[in-house]
Each structure stands twice: as structure tokens, then as C-alpha cells.
């Protein structure tokens, strides 16, 4: 498709640079906002170039969280909450789905299809549509404001189970046979053969599920009432409050930047697995 020659070769670049700029623009403004003082921003006089207060703002957000008008737990605490939540959800979903798929594919037992469909149907029950009753269950179990309450109800995963089932089904029978002849039991087969074979799928899924856990909003909003349990995503909306002009925007923007760093780093650093996992697992 290069017959149009160099005359129009700059068009794709132009469109892409424009796209990248639109994506980057709000991030750039957040970065700039985090380097000025609250007064400059509040007066509506924030320039387009960085100020000199980056260190102070980030240090204050990291250790105190609160400013003159904003009350929040330290960002370090909220990041830790988010990290625990995202890690437990990602690792938990992968572990629970791996063993479920293993059971469904490599064993024959009464009720096999029943359990498979039971897991499958949860695709149609997103947390958003069963908010109140799920909240009641969690509260009856005394799991409000706890990490188990924040994570365990989100650990079931039909998508991950279906994906691992798909992967396991491609493993040739000969391989299973050979392992059995060599005397491998179910556990040894699982750890020595299945896990290494699913490595790339696990990595890909980890990226996607980590992002899912980190960005989850409605669930922590519902389950946590104590400020010390705030995840960073919840914390930052609470900092904004009604969004008045006169608030500690410098701290809010520093917090926003810090909230984006971990998930963006995971996606960019693991992008090879991420793209593969995203596009292939949805097939």
C-alpha cells in the first residue's frame, strides 16, 4: 500500500502523533499540577511548564496524604492496600482457576459438567448487578473492612477457568500417557508438566487480572468504610470531594500520578504477554 509514496507517508504519523498527544495530555497536566503549589492552581494560573515543588508535594502526599483542605490517609498506605488487593485477586483467581480447570479436564467424575456450567454462568452475574445482596452476605460473615472481604468474593473467575481449560485441552494425550507410565501421579503431573506448559498464559492473565484488581472501584467503595482501608482509587475520589477550585490540587495530582504508576508499569513492562493474553484469551 505504499504506492502513494512519500507524499502522503506523513499522514499516518500525523494521526498517530495526534492520538498519542490526546492520550498523554491529561497525564501531562497531572504531572505539571503535581509540581506547583495549591494557591497557584486554585487561582487558575497554572502554567504549562513544571514548577519547583515536585519533591515537596510528592513527599507530603506519600507520608501524610492530607493537606490544608484535603483529608486522606498517606498515599503509601493506600498504595499498600491497592497492592495487597490487586495481588491477592490476581494470584487467587489464577490459582483457583488453574485447579478448577485441571479437575474438569483431567478427571471424570459425577457432576463434572454441572460444576463446569456453574462456574461458567458466573460470567452473567457481574458484581454491579447484585450489589446489595452481596454486600449483605459479606457483612453477615463479618468481612466488612477486612482484606478477605475485599478480595475473596472477587476471586472466582469463569474467564480464567475457561482459558486454562482451553490450554489444557491442547495438551496431547501421549504426553499424559507418558507421564503416567513414568509413574507421575496427579499432583506431580500438575506441577511438573501442566504449570510449566501454562507459563505464558499465566503471565498474560496476571497482567490483566492485576489491572482488574487495582482498578476495581465499586467493590471497595461498598466493603470498606474505614479510611485506613481505602485503596488508592477510592482514596483519590474522596480527596476530590465536591471538586472545589480551592483545594489541595497539587496533592491530588501527585496522588493521581502515584496511583497510575504501578498498573501502567505492569502493562508496559509485561506488554509482550499482555497483548498476547488480551487478544488470545478473548478468542
Amino acid at each position, binding site marked *: 500500500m505504499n504506492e502513494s509514496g512519500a507524499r502522503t507517508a506523513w499522514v499516518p504519523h500525523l494521526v498517530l502523533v495526534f492520538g498519542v498527544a490526546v492520550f498523554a495530555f491529561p497525564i501531562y497536566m497531572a504531572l505539571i499540577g503535581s509540581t506547583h503549589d495549591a494557591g497557584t492552581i486554585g487561582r487558575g494560573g497554572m502554567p504549562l511548564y513544571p514548577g519547583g515543588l515536585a519533591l515537596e508535594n510528592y513527599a507530603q502526599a506519600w507520608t501524610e496524604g492530607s493537606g490544608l483542605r484535603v483529608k486522606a490517609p498517606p498515599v503509601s498506605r493506600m498504595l499498600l492496600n491497592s497492592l495487597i488487593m490487586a495481588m491477592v485477586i490476581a494470584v487467587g483467581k489464577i490459582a483457583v482457576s488453574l485447579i478448577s480447570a485441571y479437575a474438569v479436564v483431567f478427571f471424570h467424575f459425577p457432576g463434572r459438567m454441572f460444576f463446569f456450567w456453574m462456574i461458567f454462568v458466573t460470567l452473567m452475574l457481574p458484581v454491579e448487578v447484585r450489589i446489595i445482596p452481596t454486600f449483605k452476605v459479606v457483612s453477615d460473615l463479618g468481612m466488612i473492612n477486612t482484606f478477605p472481604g475485599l478480595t475473596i468474593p472477587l476471586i472466582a473467575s469463569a474467564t480464567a477457568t475457561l482459558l486454562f481449560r482451553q490450554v489444557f485441552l491442547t495438551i496431547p494425550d501421549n504426553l499424559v500417557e507418558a507421564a503416567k507410565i513414568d509413574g507421575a501421579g496427579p499432583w506431580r503431573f500438575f506441577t511438573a508438566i501442566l504449570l510449566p506448559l501454562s507459563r505464558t498464559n499465566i503471565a498474560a492473565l496476571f497482567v490483566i487480572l492485576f489491572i482488574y484488581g487495582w482498578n476495581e472501584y465499586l467493590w471497595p467503595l461498598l466493603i470498606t468504610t474505614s479510611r485506613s482501608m481505602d485503596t488508592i482509587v477510592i482514596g483519590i475520589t474522596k480527596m476530590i470531594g465536591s471538586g472545589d477550585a480551592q483545594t489541595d490540587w497539587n496533592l491530588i495530582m501527585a496522588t493521581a500520578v502515584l496511583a497510575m504508576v504501578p498498573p501502567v508499569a*505492569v502493562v508496559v513492562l509485561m*506488554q509482550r504477554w499482555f497483548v498476547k493474553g488480551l487478544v488470545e484469551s478473548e478468542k
Partner: protein
Amino acid sequence: MRRRVIFDDKLLPYLLLAPQVAITLVFFFWPAAQAIYYSFYLQDAFGLRQTFVWFDNYRYVLGDPLYLASAGRTLVFSASVTILAMASALALAVMADRQIRGAAAYRTLLMWPYAVAPAVAAVLWLFVFHPAIGILGRGLRDLGVAWDYKLNGVQAMGLVVLAAAWKQVSYNFLFFLAGLQAIQKPVIEAAAIDGAGPARRFWSIVFPLLSPTTFFLLVVNLVYAFFGTFGVIHALTAGGPGKSTETLIYKLWVDGVINLDLGGSSAQSVILLVVVMALTAVQFRFIERRVHYG
């Protein structure tokens, strides 16, 4: 899905399934059953007594002008987010697919907003479009536009659509790019030799070949706009001003969590459940691909 070679163990498969099945029963099926149960009852103000009212909750919800207005708003919102996020992603993917230098770099630069939480995306755009301190918000006012998304419902809706779509473009971009790269180049080259121009080649060859991806993304984007945008709305407008950005999910949250209307919100839950089922069924029936990670 039956394998020939399997392991023989009577108890082990049940133990392996136990964690997932337990979570599913306690946190998925039991609450869903309760939502259906409560949707047929009316509670008194103190939650002490309840009466079985058949379909009264449903009749009330579906006859409530506020609910219908919210449903209409949800349609407008979802359609806008989907069209904006898909059209811009397709344009970018088509450009990135032309084997230009730096395609990999562009892909990285366009990929990362996928990782930004919807609520954080809302905070970023709020900072840009804030009428008093945002650079574009002030710019609009300088141009004489009466810009204030906190007072003007249409502007609020526009801002929520922008923030929600902005976040979804990367996802669509990655799928469109993968779809474009799977198209056999000789087909397109043959058309070029036959004298079809770039636009003609795109609309008569590339776009039709891309339709499975497009259809898949259509469903995913609608599901995202319906259920995945709560954070954007909560952080940006809280459903306001008035109720101008209150979508069905947001209304469900307000009625259930804030107003504590158990019967009414349960009926809303069940209605949305039917919507999810329909969308999932469409997806599996026509494209046999899965929806979202949940």
C-alpha cells in the same frame, strides 16, 4: 471436551473444585437468589416487616418516569462511548497498521491508558475541564462558552463520555490492530493493482474482513459502558447535575446503598441481570467469544 487419558481419583477433583465452587455459591448464586427473592417483597420503613407483593416492584420500577429516563440516558451514554471509543481506535489502528517506522513505539504509547483506573481517568479529565482551574475549562470560558459541567447537564454528560471513552480506546486499538494484521496483505495488494484507491480498499475489503473483531468489540464496549463506568461517573459528577448523568448502574447504587430501597433495587438488579444475560447470549451465539474479566 472429554479426554481419553485421565487420572483416576474419586475425591481429588472435588477438592480441586471446592474453592471456586464455594466462592461461586456464597458470593454469586446466593446473592443473586436473594435479589430475586427481595424483588417480590415490600419492606416497611424500618426493615422489620415485609409483604409479598408479586410483581409490584417491577411494575413500579418499569412505570417510574425516573427509571425510564435513566434507561434512555444509559442508551445515549453507552452509544456515545462505544462509537467514540471504537471509531478513534479504528482510525489509529489503521494508521499504525501501515508499516511505518515506529509502529511498535506507537503501540506502546497507545496501550498504557488501559491500565488507568476509570476513576483516575475521571480525576484527570476533571482537572483539565474544571471551569475555574482546568486549562481547557478556562479556555472555553475565555472563548465565551458558558462552560460549567457542574451546572450544565449536557456538558456533564459530554465530559463523562469523554473520560469513559478515553480509557477504552487502548483496548479497542489493540484488538483492531491484531485484526488488521491478520488480514492477508495480497488481497489488498490485488485490489490496489485493480485500481481501487485507499478509501475504496478500506471500505470494500478491510472493513468487512474486520467485522468479527468489530462485532466482538461492540458487545464488549456496550458491556463496559453499562457496567464498567460506575467509577467514572461517581468520581466526576456523582450522577449530577440533577440526575443528568445517572445511568442505570448508578441509579441502582443510589437506590440500594443510599436510599436503602431493598425491594426496588432488587427488582432493578434482576432487570439488569436479564440485560447482562441477553448481551452474553448474543456474544456467545454469534461470535463465541467471552466478555470481560470478572
